[in-house]
């Protein structure tokens, strides 16, 4: 990756979705092969700004996500770089087979930009919750999965994803996520980011759960427990080295994700630790249930996707590490 010419300052005080829309336009200026594909949701996915700036490079397929994803494959075979925008549950489930068979199997350069993931559509209920997408997408060979956690990171991730060869699934939430970073850091697909040093426990998270992970680390610090916090923005390929280092140096891991505990970050991390450096590992996530309806915060609290729960899990993992419980 070359040095960024985009001013990250522009992304500091806007929402993650707005950052996505803005980054797309900037990349559209730089990369003439970019085309935007939408499915009657360009407004809510924030593709609208690109559509306005580049109407000839925008294609709205209407409410037909399977067609859109298959068409993206066609665009890619002709040298275009299609940006496919839709709600995450529609890309990962409605168009699941097209993603696997038309994009991943031929290894085509298509960028699947999944918005409204996790519990972003909290009051939308289960039909609109996107809490199984990583499990599904992780199982497809050739596919890279990236999940930024705030506006600045989204802008950086969009740029990286567009320059990254091959199919990518970019997972974005909707909410107004508080800023986690300053703008000066390097974003590299596949390389996790150390946010806080610590040697008693490691907390790994991405997306909206990263804030909870940082809050948990602060609470733990008050009890003299030093938690390492790592931003696992790339779920696939997972940063094996960071996991092995965390396992060997801190001896216990807690993962946190706004996703089912099946097939998500937790299992990806467990896959590495069980093969290379086995340590106690507790997964915070949605426990094999549909989530019900409510405001985002309320739902997260109900499901245990909170700093408090991460603290609890961290203490338990440390006891396991010290063989005080099994």
């Amino acid at each position, binding site marked *: 990756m070359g040095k960024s010419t985009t001013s990250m300052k522009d992304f500091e005080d806007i929402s993650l979705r707005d950052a996505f829309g803005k980054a797309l336009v900037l990349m559209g200026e730089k990369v003439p092969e970019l085309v935007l594909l939408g499915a009657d949701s360009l407004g809510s996915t924030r593709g609208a700004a690109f559509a306005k700036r580049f109407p000839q490079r925008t*294609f709205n397929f209407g409410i037909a996500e399977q067609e859109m994803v*298959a*068409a*993206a494959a*066609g665009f890619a075979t*002709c040298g275009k770089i299609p940006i496919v925008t839709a709600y995450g549950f529609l890309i990962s489930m409605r168009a699941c087979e*097209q993603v696997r068979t*038309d994009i991943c199997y031929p290894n085509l350069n298509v960028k699947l930009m999944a918005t409204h993931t996790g519990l972003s559509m909290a009051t939308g209920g289960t039909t609109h919750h996107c809490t199984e997408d990583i499990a599904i997408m992780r199982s497809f060979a050739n596919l890279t999965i990236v999940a930024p956690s705030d506006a600045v990171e989204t802008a950086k991730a969009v740029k990286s994803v567009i320059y990254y060869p091959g199919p990518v699934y970019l997972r974005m939430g909707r909410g107004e996520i508080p800023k986690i970073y300053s703008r000066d850091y390097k974003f590299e697909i596949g390389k996790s980011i150390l946010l806080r040093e610590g040697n008693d426990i490691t907390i790994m998270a991405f997306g909206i759960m990263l804030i909870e992970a940082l809050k948990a680390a602060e609470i733990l610090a008050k009890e003299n427990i030093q938690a390492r916090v790592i931003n696992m923005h790339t779920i696939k390929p997972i940063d094996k080295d960071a996991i092995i280092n965390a396992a060997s140096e801190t001896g216990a891991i807690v993962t946190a994700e706004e996703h089912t505990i099946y097939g998500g970050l937790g299992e990806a991390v467990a896959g590495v630790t069980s093969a290379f450096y086995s340590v106690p590992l507790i997964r915070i996530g949605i426990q094999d249930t549909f989530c019900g309806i409510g405001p985002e915060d309320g739902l997260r609290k109900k499901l245990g996707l909170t700093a408090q729960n991460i603290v609890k899990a961290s203490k338990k993992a440390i006891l396991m590490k010290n063989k005080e419980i099994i």
Partner: protein
Amino acid sequence: MPIIKIWGGYSKLKKLNSRELAKKANELRLISLEMIDKASGGHIGGSLSAMDIITALYFNILNIDPKNPKKKNRDRFILSAGHKAAGYIPVLAERGFFSKKLLATFNKLDSPFGMHPDMNKIPGCEMSTGSLGHGLAVGLGMALALRMDNYNSRVFVLMGDGEIEEGTVWEAAMGAAHYSTDNLIAIVDYNKCSMDGPINQVLNIEPIEEKWRSFGWEIRRINGHNMDEILTALSNLPKEKGKPTVIIADTIKGKGVPSIEGDYHWHYGLLSDEQLLDARRKLVGGE
């Protein structure tokens, strides 16, 4: 990247006329049957019903160059009914994309060819297919991309008749009409059979012409085994400027092997030695 070295014959192939094409198609039917025989089974019925159309495309219609299979302004062909690969791979070999000797590896371990074609292993193959209902939407994406770049390329998508029972076909049909992609041509190999039985008994797709017309497509209805009709239908496209064209080709499942013609049981199978000998006599004459 293709794992096959490109052979690259016939770059400046003289277009075959309808008589020569019909002969070529029958020769290719036999090659296909022999390939299936070596593999101990294959999708015989649909491969034979589509053979005249695929042969006409590759030896008369498509702007392609086996020596330069990725030239940007080429026409595209998508075998959306990917299970007809046994009727497609021999055509690519005969057209010079790779050596015919490779056909003997069909379905074998690590072969570039199996029941369904893989674009990253087969030179000249434009899309990996096999799961039905995907090709038309992929072709629409190609047609839009090619039009954006001002290429005159056409995109031909061959589907099975049963395939159009898939909902995604109609998403793409709607999309193509909406975007006026007159460089997109769908072909329906209407052999009247699907896997479980005669198509009108499994799921009736009639009235097929009215369906496509109401979706905004121009229709050409032909006998898919009459080379003159095939060539006429595939020439002078689009039929109407600003509209995609569908060619509905009435065909016979298993065409060329009298003992299996029109029998839905021959979606997949293996001819007996006697049937294969009969087919050889019928298709190329003599022994």
